[in-house]
């Protein structure tokens, strides 16, 4: 065999290899999502799944990320935390997703977190929650208690009265959030006259309603979660309690409770989130129009959870663009540099050290049209507690959750 032929063969081989590499560059980027599309938690999941699909579609229509299209692999966790562990493993090990977004309840997030830390995968938790997660691989884009519970308590103290009764779902979210409500009520010199934890499969609230009538609070602070707990709002009004006390909530509306319930059952309930469909800005009008074009004009309601998911995907895409890579460490660094995104509720900016977000918040009251009336809002609210406790730039090797100190 001549030396010349060898050279030619080698050159051809090299060329083929480089062509292969170029083709690999154009292969879609696999990204993963796990949400509850069925079961009692789908009241949150349905809109979040739609937001995921629409966000990926929009990013792809605008040319994808780094010139490559995104390929979404999504799983339905069926309101079962064990499935989160399973699918998180599957996404990072089998599907090789470069980022996983998902989780609705805090219990599901805590199921995913150890898995993604073991497999070294980037994870976005896009949902309102009890705050405090401090983890190098995790970004939490939802509203946290310092942005939500604190202003809700302050508003209730001013407008409704000083006596609070807390009803919370019986898992980590409800327990930790109850501590937050107690803390903020104590700071505002109010009084918590009772608190209850309700298992997620309870739908019959007669004993709770009896106790509310005895404790006679001014304000019922609801941290109830899931389809079964919607029954509380219905039974509360059916028992004639609305004339005696008012409900404020950190969860009402995320599951479209105001759509499921009759208007006379949900009116007067007050909630704080970054996003309400009724926000009157050009950016939101455009967003709602786009959403309705995709999913139909009669779409029930675009929830805050859905918009948080939307923001999560775009923050990640912006960070990948800045990093010039989908590598976990480079993307985390780009996110920590303070990536921001102009979403339907206004600008959302990552706070680098805490991996949480600065965002606008809005106050609203459920109205008689299965929606909310926005009462007011605050601009660019920091995640105060997480900023105080968590610095992942100085101390990167943290995988923990900070909790409110209680006496």
């Amino acid at each position, binding site marked *: 065999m001549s030396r010349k032929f060898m050279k030619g063969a080698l050159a051809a081989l090299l060329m083929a290899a480089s062509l292969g590499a170029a083709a690999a560059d154009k292969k879609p980027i696999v990204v993963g999502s796990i949400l509850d*599309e*069925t*079961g*009692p938690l*789908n*009241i949150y*999941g*349905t809109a979040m799944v739609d937001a995921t699909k629409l966000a990926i579609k929009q990013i792809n229509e605008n040319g994808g990320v780094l010139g490559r299209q995104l390929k979404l692999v999504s799983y339905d966790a069926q*309101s079962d935390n064990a499935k989160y562990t399973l699918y998180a493993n599957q996404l990072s090990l089998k599907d090789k997703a470069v980022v996983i977004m998902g989780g609705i309840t805090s219990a599901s997030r805590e199921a995913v977190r150890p898995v993604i830390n073991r497999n070294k995968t980037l994870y976005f938790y896009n949902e309102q929650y009890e705050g405090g997660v401090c983890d190098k691989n995790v970004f939490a884009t939802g509203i946290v208690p310092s942005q939500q519970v604190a202003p809700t308590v302050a508003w209730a103290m001013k407008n409704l009265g000083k006596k609070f009764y807390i009803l919370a779902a*019986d898992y980590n979210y409800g327990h930790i959030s109850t501590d937050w409500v107690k803390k903020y009520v104590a700071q505002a010199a109010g009084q918590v006259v009772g608190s*209850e*934890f*309700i*298992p997620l*499969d*309870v*739908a*019959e609230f*007669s*004993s*709770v*309603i*009896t*106790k509310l*009538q*005895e404790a006679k609070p001014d304000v019922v602070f609801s941290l109830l979660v899931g*389809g*079964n707990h*919607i*029954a509380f709002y*219905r*039974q509360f*009004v*059916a*028992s*004639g*309690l609305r004339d*005696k006390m008012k409900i404020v909530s950190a969860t009402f509306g995320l*599951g*479209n409770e105001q759509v*499921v*319930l*009759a208007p*006379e*059952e949900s009116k007067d309930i007050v909630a704080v989130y970054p996003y309400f469909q009724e926000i009157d800005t050009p950016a939101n009008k455009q967003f709602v129009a786009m959403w309705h074009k995709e999913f139909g004009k009669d779409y*029930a309601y675009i929830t805050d959870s859905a918009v948080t998911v939307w923001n999560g995907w775009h923050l990640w895409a912006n960070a990948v663009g800045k990093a010039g890579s989908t590598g976990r460490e480079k993307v985390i660094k780009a996110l920590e540099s303070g990536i921001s995104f102009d979403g339907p509720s206004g600008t959302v900016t990552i706070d680098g050290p805490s991996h949480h977000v600065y965002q606008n918040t809005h106050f609203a009251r459920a109205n008689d049209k299965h929606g909310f009336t926005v009462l007011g809002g605050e601009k660019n609210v920091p995640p105060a507690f997480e900023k105080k406790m968590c610095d992942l730039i100085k101390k990167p090797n943290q995988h923990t959750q900070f909790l409110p100190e209680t006496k």
Partner: protein
Amino acid sequence: MDWSQFDWLINLALSMQLSIAVLVIVSIGLAVVFGMMGIINLAHGEFLMLGAYATLACVRAGINLWLSMGIAAFVVGIFGLVVEQLLIRHLYGRLADSMLATWGLSLIMAQVMVLIFGPSTQGIATPLGSINIGAYSVSGYSFVLIAAAVVLLAIVYWVFTRTPYGVMARAAMQMPGMAAAVGINPKLINAGTFAFGAALAGVGGALLAPLVGVMPSMGQAYIARAFMTVIVGGPGVISGTASSAVLLGGMENVVSYLSTPFFGQGALLVLAIVLLRVLPTGISGRWQRQL
């Protein structure tokens, strides 16, 4: 006793009766099928769910709520008849097989509902407003549920003691051979009993619809309670179901009231275990009564 204590007592009693009534409503259909046929219908929760959806669909179509509940009972009864013909009648006397088959059926039903109605929770507003009792106010619909529980028990009693079908059904249950020898067709009786149980489940679901959220997975929230009530109650369809509902529902409500619903649920489970340890055949196991 002054009035302030009296209204407290009435309110607590009503709240207890409501818990008991809900247990009776969700478990009476299961009790009939288990007590009269020895079939454990693991799709019972989904039969409730079907009743709730049938009610929802009728109300959405503009039909009066109470009439809708009747239609729901009829629809689920017919559905039960179909299920009996296609599935259950091949599995008589095969307890484990029938459990497996009905469990499979429950999964199929829940998923089909997701496909038809979507996975979202839907609802019907609670009718009838509220009634004041002293310093307390109570939902008017609670009284409907309490009355409905009593009426359902009465209907079951009437059907099994005063109708020719009921007498034949009891005969077929006690001595199948002898019953067949005197000309009672056990196939017909079984089909009828299963359909009757399904119709009762349909009413149960219909009655729950205005109280809770209607969703494809709602059966799961009730199936465990319904089973516990029926198994603790034992073979007496009416006496057993009623007495175990009173004990379990009363216990859950009082403990929930004194502590939290979490311990209420726990107390219900503990009481069920203790009762089954002491009375392995259920509360009505040693009673002479059949119903």
